[in-house]
């Protein structure tokens, strides 16, 4: 069995967000780039499953749609343990474009399990995984918080409002993973970092796809008015303000 993990290259969460070109483009200056946090957890789970599979999982491959500047992020995934990286050489336009590119390449290779993070921390769209599954015409299980393989069968648990569902799915399938799938991301070991340099990183050229939406421009939120401080020995005043001023209780 082969597992594919789709990874997105995103600004580190603590990055201060700025825009250029009259607020039409993200300002990449001084930005630290990372593997999208959910994708990193998906990769961690994929590695755990492979390690425990006694060879049943042949390989874990990561795939990214992005320009050469994304390669350090792919190498990081290889350092974490992925066996091979694939990059589709295009600047992402929208989720539909990204999913379409992924689908083109995935159709050429056989992956039984395809994992995507539930969203990426830049555009927060929660859409590539779902879109990809429709392009591939395979089942998708969303909000997956547990995934295991036992006797060649995939065990999936999905979070729902107020609980969980255990789901059985035919293969291949797209698992859209969220919190719970792994606790902490794997940290690359020194050996992992060294071997990542020599692992294969294959580059595919994109196909022609039109985006369905366009990011016209960006805005920063207005700064918030200062916090009203209440003395700790005057808690009544807080209740009073919440009742009479904010009218929330």
């Amino acid at each position, binding site marked *: 069995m082969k597992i594919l993990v789709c990874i997105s290259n995103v600004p580190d969460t603590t990055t201060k967000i700025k825009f250029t070109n009259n607020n039409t483009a993200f300002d990449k200056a001084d930005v630290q780039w990372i593997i999208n946090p959910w994708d990193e957890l998906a990769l961690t789970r994929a590695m755990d499953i492979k390690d425990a599979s006694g060879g049943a999982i042949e390989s874990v491959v990561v795939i990214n749609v992005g320009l050469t500047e994304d390669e350090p992020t792919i190498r990081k995934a290889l350092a974490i343990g992925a066996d091979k990286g694939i990059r589709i050489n295009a600047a992402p336009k929208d989720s539909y474009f990204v999913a379409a590119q992924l689908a083109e390449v995935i159709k050429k290779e056989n992956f039984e399990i395809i994992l995507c993070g539930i969203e990426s921390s830049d555009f927060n769209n929660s859409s590539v995984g779902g879109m990809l599954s429709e392009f591939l015409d395979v089942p998708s299980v969303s909000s997956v918080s547990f995934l295991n393989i036992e006797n060649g069968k995939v065990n999936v648990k999905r979070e729902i*409002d107020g609980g969980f569902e255990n789901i059985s799915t035919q293969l291949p399938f797209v698992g859209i993973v969220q919190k719970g799938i792994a606790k902490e991301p794997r940290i690359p070991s020194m050996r992992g970092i060294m071997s990542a340099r020599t692992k294969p990183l294959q580059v595919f050229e994109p196909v022609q796809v039109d985006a369905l939406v366009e*990011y016209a421009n960006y805005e920063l939120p207005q700064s918030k008015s200062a916090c009203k401080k209440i003395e700790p020995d005057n*808690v009544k005043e807080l209740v009073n303000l919440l009742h009479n001023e904010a009218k929330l209780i």
Partner: protein
Amino acid sequence: MSVLVFTENWDGKFKKLSFELVSYANEIAKKLNTSTTALSIGKVEDDELKKLGTYGAVKIISVENDKLKGLVNQAYTSIISQVVAKENATVVVFANNYMGKAVAPRLSVKLKAGLASGVSALPSSLEPFTIKKKVYSSKAFANIVVKTPVKILTLFQNAFGITESPANATIEKFSPELKDSDLKTEILEVSKHTGKLLLTDAEIVVSGGRGMRGPENWGPIEELASLLGAATACSRPVSDEGWRTHEEHTGQTGKIIAPNLYIACGISGAIQHLAGVSSSKCIVAINKDPDAPIFEAADYGIIGDALKVLPELIIAVKELKASA
């Protein structure tokens, strides 16, 4: 032409979320000079379906199918696409929750319809269709232009509110075509606790962080929550430590919520935490560190020991309730 809204029922009953979705869809329908059609999948009695009319749905399409015991992404996508075609819908509205996130992206590809997900307001322009959404984990907004004839939106819960607009709704039973290939996933088992207020539904949330020091100190958080009719939540380390369940974890990697009131007790307000709660309409922070970043996001703040402040807060809320 119509605006189609995908409603959700829980064991045959609609919750506020579905009424909010219909209210929102109806506001778009008015702008487009068209009408709102609501789609319901699952077993719901006619009296309950009729309630969707209160918020502006003039037509309610009800799909019941024994093969659908729960959410099957492919099958739902197929059903909704058939309804979009039948109703000639130009805008399709979902909630930005488990259900919406599962189905809207698939539908986008099936219909080649642009998706704007996680929106929290009405479109700012209809031609071109432009709508605003939060990006970079709530640190900025993007204005998105949806370029396709059919537009799909997923709406953040509690972002729009409910507006009554009574319509005399007609109910239509619809039997879509379903292929076996649409049913490749099967729900084997459901475990669900009922009776507890869901975090994503709550208008008030009382939340605790590592500053609460341990699970044994959660009593006052639960008591305050129950007094206020609120849900409880926590920061990530609290759920990672196992002090509280993972379902309560809010933030970038946890639940993203937008209640009217969020009370943060002993939470520093790290950027990853704020990413999940900064859309709250009002934030109250109780923290003993005057420099904690939570105070930059908060509307009201008490610099003090949460373990001491909470019991007093409970007394003061009880007094308010008694005097009301």
